[in-house]
């Protein structure tokens, strides 16, 4: 058990909350480009993302806690991405899916944002153009580890004085 600040109850509850949030990720597929084809394979029966509890696709930022940015984000699409990110409910995580979302990929020109971490904070970067479904699932597992070990926030949490 990693030593957590705060006394026994908050660490125990923090662990339970991390476990609960880790296995019930509702993802919002912000799909724009070629990686969308690989997202389809990942979400479908063959490489099934649902085995990891993240299969529930929600098409509204109000009901999702994982923003899956799939594909190239161009300069024209950047404000849209920022708005969708702001409108997501807390606690929220972001996965940059594919080389274009991670760093602009092979498109280093006037039209493409060189990596979405210039616009929104990103939790997990999945490289690859497009990443194979197994790499995507591996990225998801890394996010779940992060959620499990993360310091969670809840409504009646006693903040340190």
């Amino acid at each position, binding site marked *: 058990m990693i030593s957590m600040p705060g006394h026994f109850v908050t660490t125990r509850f923090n662990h339970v909350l991390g476990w609960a949030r880790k296995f019930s990720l509702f993802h919002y597929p912000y799909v724009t480009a070629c990686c969308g084809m690989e997202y389809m394979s990942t979400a479908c029966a063959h490489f099934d993302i649902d085995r990891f509890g993240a299969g529930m696709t929600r098409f509204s930022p109000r009901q999702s806690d994982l923003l899956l940015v799939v594909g190239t984000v161009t300069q*024209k699409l950047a404000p849209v991405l*920022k708005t969708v990110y702001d409108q997501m409910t807390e606690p929220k995580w972001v996965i940059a899916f594919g080389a274009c979302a991670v760093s602009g990929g092979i498109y280093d020109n*006037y039209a493409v944002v060189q990596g979405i971490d210039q616009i929104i904070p990103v939790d997990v970067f999945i490289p690859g153009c497009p990443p194979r479904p197994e790499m995507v699932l591996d990225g998801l597992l890394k996010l779940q580890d992060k959620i499990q070990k993360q310091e969670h926030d809840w409504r009646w949490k006693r903040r340190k004085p």
Partner: protein
Amino acid sequence: MEEKKALSELQKRFSGNILDASAPLGDETVVIRKDALLEIAEFLRNPPFAFTMLLDLTCVDYPDRRDRFEMVYHLFSLTLNERIRIKLALPESAASVASLTGLWKNADWLEREAFDMFGVRFDGHPDLRRLFMDEGFAGHPLRKDYPLRKRQPGIAPRT
């Protein structure tokens, strides 16, 4: 033989406005004067040749030439199963040409793209505004003098 007919017919009828007619690599090409575009396009679209489909409309930027922009139109005739390429030169000062939206409906978006990318104006176009780039985008990206990596971010990068 079959291909030459369209070219020869054109030369016969519009000899004044046709600057050059050739068929490099088998693609029939005709270079015309700027203001003869509507007339020639109308002639080609009507029954004898029935180039009823505007395959493609694009622009090429030659900064070192006197007439900087060169509009390239590709027409296709379903009945003759044949393509023809019309080219015309536009000086940078008067970079505007007649719009073909009256003859073919897809010219609307094609011309908006050419305007967005090159800044070539099309007189008679119902709604000439940018197609791909944002309204606030300054400059025309596909011009040779527009740097490849000059970005105009739509939103301030996160600090």
